[in-house]
């Protein structure tokens, strides 16, 4: 019984905490624990629920408190295999998290840092303007290993829009060279690609009757890989947080092409979203889009993180991606 137990890998995850629902640390922690990680959670906010509900109660953790907690951790001694940083509300706290992670990386270069520069989506900023330069300053440390921005966030980090294949490639080059980031994933790219690219990029789970899709791109070691993601008609918060957590798990455990890890986790995400959608329908009798500001609808549109417990370890790959030359 006691013989075949392996020591857990250790991650420090710095993200939001909500009492109810699954975003930030709440979306990342349980899946990583199921994958055998000891997750140390430093919570950047302590809220009743995510902001989409309209009313939010609770407090932010100040930059001073974040530093203070880190000093406590240092005092008792730690060694982390990985760092995961997500939503941080405000430039001072972003700066504090930057200092903490840079300090950890300088002590242990083997530690893998995944940074999700959470700033906004679809043209809308949901942090203060001053957070943008704070993230750029962290990235200039050159110590971040993986970033997972969405299209809007990637554009903010490079300072120009992504409108076609050429500007996408320029953006990726900038992120690799200016910030020394090894692996980049841009999730949810709303771009038109040439037909010959589109046709070579398929997914086993795509609905043949639907032509709608978005793209994700993975870039690592000079190879840019494009994935066509079937459109799922729903609105869930926390999807990016779960994606980043599971991607970090795979990168820390496997020495294989980065795109393979991305393929595996995009596949897990499709299953998680499928299960969540089906369970929403079972619960309320119809497919539901969470309406921003409506707590009643948002309550039903939380990711089913607990129900999906068995899916996080899956190894299937549903995507046939294509290399973007």
């Amino acid at each position, binding site marked *: 019984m006691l013989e075949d*137990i392996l020591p*857990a890998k250790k991650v420090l995850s710095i993200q939001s905490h909500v*009492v*109810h629902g699954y975003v930030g640390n709440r979306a990342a922690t349980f899946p990583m624990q*199921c994958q055998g990680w000891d997750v140390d*959670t430093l919570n950047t906010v302590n809220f009743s629920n995510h902001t989409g509900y309209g009313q939010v109660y609770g*407090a932010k953790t100040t930059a001073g408190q974040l530093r*203070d907690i880190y000093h406590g951790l240092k005092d008792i001694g730690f060694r982390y295999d990985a760092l995961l940083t997500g939503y941080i509300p405000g430039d001072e706290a972003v700066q504090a998290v930057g200092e903490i992670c840079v300090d950890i990386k300088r002590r242990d270069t083997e530690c893998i840092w995944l940074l999700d520069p959470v700033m906004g989506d679809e043209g809308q900023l949901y942090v203060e303007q001053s957070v943008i330069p704070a993230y750029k300053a962290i990235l200039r440390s050159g110590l971040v290993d993986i970033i997972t921005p969405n299209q809007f966030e990637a554009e903010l980090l490079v300072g120009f829009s992504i409108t076609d294949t050429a500007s996408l490639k320029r953006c990726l080059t900038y992120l690799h060279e200016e910030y020394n980031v090894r692996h980049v994933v841009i999730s949810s790219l709303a771009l038109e690609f040439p037909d010959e690219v589109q046709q070579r990029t398929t997914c086993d789970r795509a609905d043949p009757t639907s032509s709608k899709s978005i793209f994700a791109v993975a870039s690592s070691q000079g190879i840019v890989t494009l994935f066509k993601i079937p459109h799922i008609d729903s609105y869930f918060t926390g999807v990016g947080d779960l994606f980043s957590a599971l991607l970090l798990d795979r990168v820390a455990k496997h020495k294989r092409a980065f795109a393979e890890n991305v393929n595996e986790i995009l596949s897990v995400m499709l299953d998680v979203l499928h299960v969540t959608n089906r369970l929403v329908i079972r619960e309320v009798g119809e497919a539901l889009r969470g309406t921003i500001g409506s707590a009643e609808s948002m309550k039903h549109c939380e990711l089913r993180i607990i129900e999906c417990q068995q*899916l996080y370890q899956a190894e299937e790959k549903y995507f046939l991606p294509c290399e973007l030359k």
Partner: protein
Amino acid sequence: MSQIDTILTLPSPLKILSIQSHVTHGYVGNKAATFPLQFRGWDVDALNTVQFSNHPGHGRFTGPKASADDIQQLARGLQVLDVPYAALLTGYVPDAASLAAVGAVCAALCRRHGSVWVVDPVLGDNGKLYVSREVIPVYQTILRSGHVTLATPNQFEIETLVGREISSLVHVAQAMRLFHEMYGVPHVVVTSIHIPGENLIYSSGSSRAPDGTITAFYYRIPLIDSVFSGSGDLLLALLTDAFYRQPGASLAEALGESLSVVENVLLVSQRAEREKLGSGRHVKDLRLIEARGLLKGKCRYTPVEFNE
């Protein structure tokens, strides 16, 4: 059937609200309770009453307590959300005003949704209070509210709450009987009772039926030669799960199963600590993740009924 089809046929997870401390590193309070409950299929909402770097068993820690105002705010948020919790679990709350706010929101949830409320009346241990004295009457009010289904004081806490010292097994049975009488709580569990001169520990429980019949029992547990932090919080979470899932079954079965699982986790943790430090005398961090495969164990102890 595919894995997804299997998931879609399962009943929805039960919802529980756990109000306890949070530490960044290690497993006490909500960090000890949340994962085992989730692993056993509960949808756990977690209200954190403090955010410390680590638990005080390390000798030092940093980080803020949530102020009474913060906790009242979060309690207000929970009132707005109005989640139909099957169970509520409350542990360490740092001060009387916060505890009163927690008590009010839990009582309201019990009234609306008939939630089972498990209260660990955290006051102190080994003869020492580690909350302010004003917290005691607030717990007494909560316990008398008629909403608490199960209370899990330790030896020091039940002594404080019933005003009697315990130095023999007969005293334990008397204290639990008195606890039912004073507070009207139908189920009480007192774990880790040390009787002077005995080289094992006792874990006891007592249920009072609506007709007043009392069924009290105890387990004899072999002493593991180490000090553990968080084992009580883990037991509380497992007991809440076992007790809720088998409402027809006895408190004795629920406690026996939970004690067996805790023992497994402690043995894994002790061995890992020895490998790491060469000594396993004080196991500061439970190895909950390493031991996760053992979290769904079966009972290996036999209860003994109290014969008064």
